[in-house]
């Protein structure tokens, strides 16, 4: 359930690492087409490549700014932070990994949740940041999202969750992480019973236990273009079946073609697309 594979791609890891505070040059290269892009221009386009339109990594805070009306985000459950329930150590202690990731990203864990306005429509809003331990779901992400769903249910709010997770369920918290999938899904069942509107937005990458739980349970599912989305990581599949994977396998376009998502949405249009769906389905 945990895939950790996308971490292997240096190109993908790079923008995440450079994200915080560090002045990292005026130029960056697009991880898809390789073009050298003026950083300011790229940021103005919400990290979309001006040359090829590739949607690059965008951190959780920036996501909030691109979808919610300015100054309307009110964070919920900000004081939740992860523990190390298994005393997990691989090459590094998980407890130390948490501290390092917190320092690097400025986040306590991989999810931010709260409420805000989308073009003056109040919503419950959650986002996972694929830079924090691969955007993987441990107990904090599971708990924050479950509380978000429960509060959206009781306050009768439309629910928007933007997923970015190469890691799926977080290995370092073992079975607790796996069970978060069931926990959030059960909360979404109740939200569904209460006629709630859940818009799930999939971004690059959305894999493993995140794809196999809340991210796939939207009443409406959007995906950004060319995002990697799937259950098993491409390397695992390749190792199992020992043949080359078809071109475009597990991309947003592949999912659209096979009937699993409603719309592919450009980052610049996401806000207005969400608002429009709320007008059709929301209350």
């Amino acid at each position, binding site marked *: *359930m*945990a895939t*950790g594979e996308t*971490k292997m791609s240096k190109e993908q890891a790079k923008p995440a690492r450079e994200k915080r505070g560090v002045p990292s040059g005026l130029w960056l290269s697009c991880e898809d087409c390789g073009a050298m892009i003026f950083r300011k221009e790229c940021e103005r386009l919400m990290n979309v490549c001006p040359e090829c339109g590739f949607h690059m990594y965008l951190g959780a805070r920036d996501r909030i700014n691109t979808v919610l009306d300015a100054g309307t985000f009110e964070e919920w*459950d900000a*004081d*939740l*932070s992860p*523990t190390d*329930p*298994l005393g*997990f150590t*691989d*090459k590094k202690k998980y407890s130390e990994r948490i501290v390092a990731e917190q320092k690097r990203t400025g986040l306590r864990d991989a999810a931010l949740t709260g409420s805000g306005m989308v073009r003056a429509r109040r919503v419950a809003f959650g986002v996972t940041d694929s830079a924090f331990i691969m955007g993987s779901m441990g*107990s904090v992400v*599971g708990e924050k999202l*479950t509380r978000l769903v429960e509060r959206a249910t009781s306050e009768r709010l439309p629910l928007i969750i933007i997923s970015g997770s190469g890691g799926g*369920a*977080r*290995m370092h*918290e*073992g*079975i*607790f*992480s*796996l*069970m978060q*999938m*069931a*926990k959030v*899904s*059960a*909360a979404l*069942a*109740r939200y569904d*019973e209460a006629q709630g509107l859940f818009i799930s937005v999939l971004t690059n990458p959305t894999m*493993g*236990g995140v*794809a*196999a*739980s*809340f*991210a*796939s*349970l939207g009443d409406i599912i959007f995906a950004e273009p060319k995002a990697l*989305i*799937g*259950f*098993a*990581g491409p390397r*695992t599949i390749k190792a*199992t*079946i020992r043949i080359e*994977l078809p071109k475009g*396998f*597990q991309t947003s376009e*592949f999912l659209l073609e*096979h*009937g*699993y998502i409603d719309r592919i949405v450009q980052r610049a249009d996401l806000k207005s697309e969400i608002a429009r769906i709320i007008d059709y389905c929301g209350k």
Partner: protein
Amino acid sequence: MPGYDFRLPFEQPIFELQEQIETLEANETTSPELRERIRELRKQLTETTKAIYNHLDPWETVQVARHKERPKFTDYLDLVFDEFVELHGDRFFGDDRALRAGFAKLDEYKVLVVGHEKGKTLKERNECYFGCAHPEGYRKAMQKMALAAKYGLPIIAMIDTPGAYPGIGAEERGQAMVIAQSMMEMSRFKTPIICVVIGEGGSGGALGIGVGDRVSILQHAYYSVISPEGCAGILWKSHNYAEQAAQALRITSKHLSEMGVVDDVIEEPLGGAHRDHHQMAGRMKVYLLKTLRELLRKPTDELLAQRYEKFRRIGPYLETQPTG
């Protein structure tokens, strides 16, 4: 047991004692001394088996859980239930042999059973991808479980999978989505659900039929967020660290029970379920009947509220006021 020829390395002392006993028993002549010696060896065999199986480390547990002779879903169908009316197909794509479902009788109770099948012969193993289900398996399970809920039959789910199948077809047919949907639906089916991990509880593929009122595990089965090999490959960059990963992930019944993730641990016969299928099935039947009676006493509202709470409380975190 007959046909038992698959030996785990750490079981060597057990086999050595067994061979000694067999040699002595093959003697034409018997004497009081010989009979005494055999009695002693038998006692020693019991003690040795107990000592080994009471202290299996996590990696040894994984090997027992994967043991070729370990009772499979179909063995429980034969030994625990009086009848099995298999219901095939997901009404959409096909009939997955790795996830089977059907009506069954458990003494006086009519139930629906779903379970992963790993197969016994090489042909069967290939047909069911060694217990790795495809989306059609989860769709089938969901559709049959919905039937059970509609007609008020309790559901028994037996989990034994290394994981959901990673392949092109599986992705094309929505592996991630069906697992998510199955968990969501199981959380709200208005009928009692008992889930038992009988061998391998391999991540999402296991949890896809693992949401219920009771989640239990056999003593030497394991349940994990990722296979030890997969975890080792990602975090240690080599599958050779599977043993360390198994240790770190805390996947044994004892760990899971201590962490409050499983409700009950069903004890296995001395030396593991693979040594005595009948005894294992007997214990399974006792457990299922007892648990089913408990659950059937609960009003549906209460049952569903408790099912929700059971998963709701899982997952430790710190909650402190932000500093500054």
